[in-house]
Structure formats: structure tokens, C-alpha cells
């Protein structure tokens, strides 16, 4: 990939090949992130498509001196996800005729614990642990001071650790490891 500034200039010049490469490179990661915060695979694909479409149609708001293009993309994706929650969350929840119950998709213990965290903690942990964003990038994406990012990350990790350790299977594993 070209550096961010050059890539952005090409996108602004309507260079489809450059944008397609950007989409192929970052699309799967953005989709995985959205899937975690929306809890819905189909919605994640839709919101990812809308995010890229929005950037392609109206490429503005990216400042290379402040953050990376990837941080800008994830920030845009997160905003679209928030809009989805406001507009589709309650609507899709009520569509249908007969009630069904909820199940999480994650199969692993950490995955189960992660799915139980509040949305803001899931977002923060995913962006840091999986996407590897720096504190400065996280501050840019989330619109919070760096000091707040640090303390929130600690709180999120502790919450995940507590929820994870509270699951019966995790306790069993812990006993086995101790034996």
C-alpha cells in the first residue's frame, strides 16, 4: 500500500484502482470489527459497504497529520454503526411475528465473555488488541483524550478478565490447570 497521504490523494482524484486496493486491504478488518460491535453479521456487511461508499462519494474529513487512514476508516465505520443502532436497532428488533431468544455467535470462552461487555468497551478493546491502534489513534477515533483512553482500556481489560473468569467453564479450566 502506498503511504496514507498519497493514497488519500489518489482517492480524492477518483482513482478506482487505489480505492479498490484500500477496500480489499481494510474491508475484512472493518467487517470483523463491525461484527463485534453490532453483533449481527449481515448488518456488519451492510455498514461496512455503506462506510466505503460514503468515503468514495464524499472523500473529506481525513487529516494525515492527525491520524492514519485506517484510523479514519474505523472512526467512520464506528459512526455508521452508531447510526445503524439508532435507526435499525429498535426497528429490526420489532419486526417479525413470533418471539425468539438470543444467542451469541462466539464459541470460545473469551469470545463469550467479550460479547457480554458493553459496546464502548468492546469497541475499545477490539481496536487496541486486534487492530493495534495506538493511544493517539484511539483518542482520534473515539474523540477522547489520551489519558481517558488509557484508563478506559484498563477498565475494559479488567471487565473482560472478570467476566471471563466468572464463566463456569473458565473456572473448571482454572482448576485443571491448578491440579
Amino acid at each position, binding site marked *: 500500500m502506498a503511504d496514507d497521504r498519497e493514497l488519500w490523494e489518489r482517492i480524492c482524484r477518483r482513482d*478506482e484502482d487505489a*480505492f*479498490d486496493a484500500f*477496500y*480489499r486491504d481494510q*474491508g*475484512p*478488518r472493518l*467487517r*470483523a470489527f463491525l*461484527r463485534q460491535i*453490532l*453483533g*449481527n*453479521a*449481515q*448488518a456488519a*456487511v*451492510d455498514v461496512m*459497504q455503506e462506510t*466505503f*461508499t460514503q468515503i*468514495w*462519494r464524499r472523500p473529506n474529513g481525513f487529516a494525515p497529520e492527525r491520524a492514519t487512514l485506517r484510523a479514519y476508516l474505523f472512526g467512520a465505520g464506528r459512526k455508521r454503526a452508531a447510526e445503524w*443502532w439508532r*435507526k435499525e*436497532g*429498535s*426497528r*429490526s*428488533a*420489532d*419486526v*417479525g*411475528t*413470533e*418471539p*425468539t*431468544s*438470543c*444467542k451469541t*455467535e*462466539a464459541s*470460545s*470462552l*473469551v*469470545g463469550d465473555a*467479550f460479547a457480554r461487555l*458493553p*459496546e464502548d468497551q468492546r469497541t475499545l478493546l477490539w481496536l*487496541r*488488541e*486486534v487492530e493495534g491502534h495506538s*493511544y493517539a489513534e484511539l483518542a482520534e477515533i473515539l474523540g477522547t483524550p489520551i489519558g481517558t483512553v*488509557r*484508563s478506559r*482500556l*484498563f477498565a475494559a*481489560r479488567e471487565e473482560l*478478565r472478570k467476566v471471563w473468569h466468572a464463566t463456569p467453564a473458565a473456572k473448571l479450566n482454572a482448576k485443571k490447570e491448578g491440579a
Partner: protein
Amino acid sequence: MKCEDAAEFVSALYDGERIPREAAEHLGECETCQGRLETYSRMLAEMRRMASLDEATELSAGQWSSKERMRRSWWSKGRQPVQIPRLAFALMLAVIFLLSGGLVLVRARPNLGGPVLLLTYKIPQTGKSVRLAITTDANPETNHRSYNTGNSSGVLYFSVRFVSKVGERVELSVKSAYKKPVGDAKEHDVKDLPEATEETIWISPGENKEILVAGFGPIELSGEFLDHVPALLLSPEETLDPKTNELRIVSPVLVRGKEVVFNGAGSWSIGSGDDDLAVMIYLPSDGRYLISTAPFTGAVEASVGLGQIKFNLQGRDYLLLTAMPTTRSEHVWVTHEPRYRLSQHMKGEPDDREMFLVRSLKTLLAEQMTHYSK
């Protein structure tokens, strides 16, 4: 230094930050803090494993590119010159002149070639029909719609998105999926569904298209144009008045005194058939309000007006405003439970999200209830 004081520095150290000398010394000696660091590391590895599984799924073509290329292709073709015999050109002008009066008549007729496409899904297996209205433009907020329905025999999901329009022919991206129960499971959620299959179809008004849903069978799709977006998207043919034994809540706004405490603009929930229907409005900071067409224990009586329900709870005046009349009843009954928590009533639902829904009062008052999740 104590472990609780050092804990935040463990997180910082894990992120590659420098930490104070006192904290560093404590970490070197304390097994609890070292264990915490190790746990963080294990959690990170597992999260990255989850991400790797997710990212491995194939990426579909970007919608941004297909629309853009299609537009560009038509544009460049439109700019190319064509050769046409003089006689054919004169004939074409004559035909245009003769038809122009007719064209005016066609354009003035209602519901033809309008900006809204009303789609009907017929589900032969259940005898049910579902209607969805989408706009035929580039507005991503109105040009797609999804629907899911489920019961003990499985969950059926489908969605439709406008892609392009040529004359009265419309290109749609259609997705569908179906899942049967596994083992003894009696209930499902759309989150359990396999990846929806996607196909692109062209449809004209009056035409029937068959969509094959894997594991379920064919469903039929047909469409017609409307010149407006119907107020009730799932029941576009409905009139403004609710039916007997029907409770409609469309775009509700709950006002306490002069304060708006809930705003569900653009969403709706409708129930029918039961004589004890109720709407539940849930607010993370204020518990839940139940408004029922039947009296129940602890409820106060409220008056029903045109698109308004007025009541007084504990000396405070409330007004529920809705975009459409809610019920044929003149009175409804209301309670407020400030300590109600959604997660304790509906397993798996988050407590921090506002919501409202219409169900039978009996269902809403049950100790546990199930509900379609997002």
C-alpha cells in the same frame, strides 16, 4: 505498593508504556500482578484468533465500485455518436410527436413509475405474504429493507436493496437465509443464521420472481411502483384507523411535563388479535412504562386522543404522542416500574439500550419473555 494501585500500571506496561519505578518493583515480586499480565496476554491471543476466523470470510464486491462503473459506462456510451438514416430519423420525430400526448397521460397517472417500489414476498410454505417498501434512489437509509420471521420450526431472513433502475425495470440485490432448530432448541435468533446468500435480479411491475432459499425452498417476489412512501411500511394498504383489537405505536414520543423522556422517531411496533395488548417503553435510566388496552394491577387509567395518550403518575403529567392513532379504545391503563431491568426480563438483551415493543399484556408481565434481538 498494593496490587490495586499497581493494576492500572500492569495494563500500561502491557501496552508497551513506561511505568513508575515503584510499580515496576512491585510487579517484579508480585505473583498476582504477573498473573494479571499473563491473563491479558491470553485474552489478546484469543481475540486475535477470533478476528482471524472472521477476516478469512470472502469479501464481496464493493457496492461503491459497481454503481460507479455502471454510471460511467452508460455515460461514456451516451457520449458516443451514432449514425442513423434520415428517413429513420424523420420517422422517429413523427412517432415522438404522435406519442407525446399519450406520454403526458401516462405520467399523470398515479402509482406508475413512482419513486417507491412496493415489494411482496409470498411464502408458500406458511401461506404468509410480507410487504416491504423501498425507494429507488441512492439514499442508503431508505433504499433497502430487511425482514425476519421465526418460530419453533426455524428462522427465515431476507433483505432487499435497490441497485439501479432502467425504465420500469429495477435491479435489486436480494439476500436470504434460513435456519432450522438444532437439537432441542425451540427458539432462534437472526444471529444464528448462516451467511445469507446474495443474488442480483431484475424485476418489472406485475412480474413474479422466484427466490430459492437454501434449506427452505422457493419464495415468490413481485413488485409495483408507488408515488409515495407508505406510513406503515409493512402494511402499505392499511388505513389510518387502527382495527378492532389492534394497538399501533408509530414514532412514539413520551413527554413528562415539558421534558421528552423517549423519542422513537421512525420506528414502529404493531400488535393485533389479543384483547389485552400493551406497549412497553424501556429507558435505561428510568425503567419501563407499560400501557395496556386492558386494566391490570397497579395501573392508572389514561385517556386516549387522536395520536395522543395522556396520563398522570405520582403527580406528574405524561403525554405519549404517536404518528398515527394507536387504538380504538377510549381508555388505556399505565404503570411505571423505575427499577425494571431489561436483561432480567429478556435473556441476553442489553440494559443500556432504549426500546419499545407491542405484545400481549400477559407476555409482557410474564416473569421471563423472549424477544427478537437486533
